């Protein structure tokens, strides 16, 4: 971490000398530059959304449904309205005349911001109460009186498909979306193969559960008839339509501003628009700012923030020699009551359809069902973790069926490095990587452990005598990185017509970055996306300091709000490292070109006689114009024609690569970087208690060129911790009557420092041939590869008992249950 080229130790750099002090040609990018975000956080000065309410703000609380499925017979708000501290009560009836339903992930499911006539999940907002403070608002919420006529709830995802009870009568079925995709000739492969193996696996409802909940401060301005909305929504420049469409205003009149510090999101805060809309409506009604911060119980039971809950039926065709011939995935994904924007979580697995295996014939089919549970949102990995889990489970099953060593079976089918770049049957392309070498690396670690270590046969034997089963099974996993095209609205498109599209019809979402030189010669850059802990300010600081040859302390990075920023994608889909580095490169070039033009103008010489270098423009004879001097000269130019400002929109790594044309045109998920990991967690399962302990976690990780190894390592640790939680602890269970079972953090068990094993992470760097810096996306890795690899190691440990981790999370209860079932057989 000390390899900074930063020599600004005395902090006394004068504006004119700036740049020239860059002592060496060493770069910031690639070094573990300490984060610029940290100081304000460590001192408590950082302002998160819950610090944003002004003195004048009123506070909102929500009355939420207590039933999973019921007709609303009547709502009596009079007692709440009579409460002396209460300023406003709103129900669906009050908002329907003036506003619109909220946009949905699937056409036909547009929804009012408050339950209209019927409630469809416990925790669904029914009424808004605004009062002097939150304590009083909750007092008044208690006075709202709703009478219900309860209905049967739909809780089981497979059962929901029978349509015995409908969540949405108008739609006529609980299957909100369905698609079957066939690649190559799966029927042929399955008919020809020596064996067909089948398995069913389930993935429990989990989510990101960031430490900070959702929050908003909405302020309506009467004079301009517009809204300023501070909120911690994720992708504020992409999903702002969910707010302005609902309010029925132009995008320019609804300004979403996300604080520089957001307390985590992991995808979950993409769908918090309801809160923004309700606070905005209340603010307009009262002509006062209205603030709301979701409390944790609201967040867990009805915060529209659960994620993937799937039941899989998987088939695999395999020959006697272990060659995998074909794959067949069917699953049902329980989206809860309403399909929100992240419906395409069911499609992203196509970008890693066969994981690290060379298989060309596959079928992929899903039913997206609606039930009486809170709505799904995105979560780190976006549907991929469950897919890799199901795939690795069926591979284990196949090894058992044909009596082959699972390691050998995996090795036999891995994509070889000389097959790179490798096109999947589903048309996405893996850019680079040596998967067999990665597997061998962790296999070696495990071999070492077998020789006097944690897996020494004698130790394993002795432990087994105590009822403790140890095992480890190395696996390789791909993390698809850098989405950025219109495949994301495939489910709102006419899918029959997609074959007619060509490359020109594809809409892409670039990454915008802009910068200006300040009067003191420092550089202020503006990101058009929001962040929630990923260190983007640090990353842009490093990249721009290198592009411009100045000190990192000369760069100040800020954020644009949704009105200032162009519509773009933002922080999701492991894309920022690649997109921001592409944007910074383009921006650096644009800005230096401008500065050369400006200097040539000042010196009245041709552009070709000047050159930008390390914070100044120079010309023959040693004359220099520093950034500060250039900024001063530029002020003489008209404001709309300044040359010390520039912006750049970096398209996307796949934009210029013909190889992706087909996938882009057909709206198949395109993720042009393939980061990968080979994992080998060593687990110990206590057959009596059912507890799974991770003794050690080996992982070899490769995300191409690392822009900031400290941040890369941090992402890996954090992702793996979430992977461990998903595999062993976390689950939003529901009782048969639709009551949520995990509504506090006592019930939804997040990993603590006690659950995290010793991690031994190694890194290799296989640069991406597709990206400007060689970087690959890596924001989701550990959550993508953690659960599947843990399940495989558990299978290895429990092999003597013939038990498989067929349900995630594999909680102590489930482990004991499975073991007893086997014993009874």
């Amino acid at each position, binding site marked *: 971490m000390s390899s900074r080229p930063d020599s600004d130790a005395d902090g006394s750099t004068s504006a004119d000398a700036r740049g020239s002090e860059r002592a060496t040609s060493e770069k910031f990018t690639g070094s573990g530059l300490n984060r610029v975000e940290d*100081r304000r956080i460590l001192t408590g000065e950082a302002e998160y959304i819950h610090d944003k309410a002004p003195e004048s703000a009123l506070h909102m609380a929500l009355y939420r449904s207590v039933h999973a499925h019921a007709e609303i017979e009547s709502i009596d708000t009079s007692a709440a309205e009579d409460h002396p501290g209460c*300023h406003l009560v709103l129900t669906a*009836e*009050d908002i329907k005349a003036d506003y619109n339903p909220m946009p949905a992930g699937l056409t036909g499911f547009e929804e009012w911001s408050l339950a209209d006539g019927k409630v469809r999940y416990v925790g669904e907002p029914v009424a808004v109460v605004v009062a002097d403070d939150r304590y009083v608002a909750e007092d008044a919420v208690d006075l709202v009186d709703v009478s219900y006529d309860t209905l049967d709830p739909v809780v089981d995802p497979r059962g929901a498909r029978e349509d015995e009870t409908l969540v949405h009568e108008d739609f006529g079925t609980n299957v909100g979306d369905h698609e079957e995709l066939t690649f190559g000739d799966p029927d042929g492969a399955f008919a020809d193969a020596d064996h067909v193996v089948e398995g069913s696996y389930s993935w429990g409802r989990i989510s990101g559960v960031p430490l900070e909940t959702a929050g908003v401060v909405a302020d309506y301005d009467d004079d301009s008839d517009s809204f300023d909305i501070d909120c911690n929504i994720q992708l504020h420049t992409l999903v702002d339509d969910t707010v302005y469409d609902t309010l029925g205003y132009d995008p320019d009149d609804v300004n979403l501003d996300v604080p520089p510090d957001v307390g985590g999101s992991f995808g979950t805060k993409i769908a918090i628009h309801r809160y923004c809309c309700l606070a905005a409506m209340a603010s307009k009604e009262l002509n006062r700012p209205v603030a709301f911060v979701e409390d944790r*119980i609201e967040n867990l039971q009805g915060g529209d923030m659960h994620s993937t809950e799937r039941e899989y039926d998987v088939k695999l065709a395999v020959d006697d020699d272990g060659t995998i011939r074909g794959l067949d995935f069917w699953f049902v994904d329980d989206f809860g009551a309403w399909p929100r924007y992240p419906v395409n979580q069911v499609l992203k697995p196509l970008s890693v359809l066969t994981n690290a295996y060379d298989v060309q014939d596959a079928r992929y089919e899903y039913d997206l069902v609606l039930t009486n549970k809170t709505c799904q949102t995105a979560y780190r990995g976006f549907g991929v973790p469950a897919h890799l889990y199901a795939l690795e489970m069926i591979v284990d099953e196949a090894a058992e069926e044909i009596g082959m060593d699972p390691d050998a079976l995996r090795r036999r089918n891995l994509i070889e490095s000389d097959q790179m770049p490798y096109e999947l049957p589903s048309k996405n392309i893996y850019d680079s990587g040596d998967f067999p070498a990665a597997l061998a690396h962790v296999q070696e670690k495990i071999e070492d452990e077998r020789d006097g270590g944690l897996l020494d046969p004698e130790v394993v034997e002795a432990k087994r005598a105590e009822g403790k089963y140890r095992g480890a099974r190395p696996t390789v996993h791909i993390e698809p990185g850098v989405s950025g095209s219109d495949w994301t609205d495939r489910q709102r498109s006419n899918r029959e017509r997609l074959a007619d599209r060509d490359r020109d019809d594809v809409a892409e979402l670039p990454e915008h970055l802009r910068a200006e030189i300040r009067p003191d010669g420092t550089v202020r850059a503006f990101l058009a996306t929001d962040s929630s802990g990923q260190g983007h300010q640090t990353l842009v600081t490093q990249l721009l300091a290198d592009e411009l040859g100045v000190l990192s302390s000369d760069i100040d990075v800020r954020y644009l709000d949704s009105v200032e920023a162009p519509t773009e994608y933002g922080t999701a889909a492991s894309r920022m490292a690649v997109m921001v580095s592409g944007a910074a490169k383009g921006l650096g070039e644009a800005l230096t070109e401008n500065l050369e033009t400006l200097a040539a103008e000042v010196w009245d010489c041709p552009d070709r006689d000047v050159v930008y270098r390390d914070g100044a423009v120079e010309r023959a004879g040693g004359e220099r114009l520093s950034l500060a001097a250039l900024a001063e000269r530029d002020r003489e130019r008209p404001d709309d024609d300044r040359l010390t400002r520039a912006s750049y929109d970096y398209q996307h790594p796949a934009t210029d690569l013909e190889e992706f044309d087909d996938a882009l045109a057909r709206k198949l998920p395109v993720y042009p970087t393939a980061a990968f990991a080979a994992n080998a967690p060593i687990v110990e399962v206590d057959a009596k208690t059912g507890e799974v302990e991770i003794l050690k976690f080996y992982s070899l990780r490769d995300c191409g060129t690392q822009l900031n190894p400290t941040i890369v390592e941090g992402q890996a640790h954090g992702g*793996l911790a979430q992977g461990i939680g998903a595999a062993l602890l976390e689950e939003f269970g529901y009782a048969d009557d639709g009551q949520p079972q995990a509504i506090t953090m006592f019930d939804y068990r997040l990993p603590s420092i006690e659950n995290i094993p010793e991690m031994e992470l190694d890194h290799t760097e296989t640069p991406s041939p597709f990206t400007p810096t060689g970087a690959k996306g890596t924001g989701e890795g550990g959550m993508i590869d953690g659960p599947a690899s843990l399940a495989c190691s558990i299978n290895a440990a429990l092999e003597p008992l013939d038990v498989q981790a067929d349900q995630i999370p594999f909680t102590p209860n489930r482990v004991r249950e499975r073991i007893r079932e086997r014993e009874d057989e």
Partner: protein
Amino acid sequence: MSVNDISGPLDYPTEEIALSVNGEEVTAEVEPRHKLSDFLRDARGLRGVRVGCEHGVCGACTVLMDGRAVKSCLTYAVQADGADIETVEGLADDGALHPIQESFHEEHALQCGFCTSGFVMATKELLDSEPDPDRDDIEDGLADNICRCTGYQNIYDAVLRAADRMDGEADDEGAADDEEATGDGATETEADR
């Protein structure tokens, strides 16, 4: 819908409390139902006290009360009457970060930072009572705090680094009179800026 225009102060009962907050003597009128976390954040403006669950699990709201780490969301403000409260805002000394803060920065022990105040205060309690913690001490001392971003490894390393540094400072102070805290901590901060 109805817009209510009665907005005068409500007649809730209050009690007077007197306490010390980050070394400052404070008296205040609070409602008995007000949580210490809300009192510190709203009445004292100490926004570094984060609120992540309000039911005692996440530890984001951890502050020191008479030297012991407490969850300020589970403590009523009236319970702090007569107490000595320390929050993260009280740690830095005239702009110089506390060794624990330094160490969290250097070990990249924070990402989104929402848990950080709580972890830093829990670490302070831990190191005040156990200046030379082993792995178990750290696990016990921080088991009541949740971090969703870092995966804990770097937090663990930061605590060890802080222990080292505080140990070094204690030695320095003992040996030479006031060369105090110029150690690597102060210099590295300068360079990072």
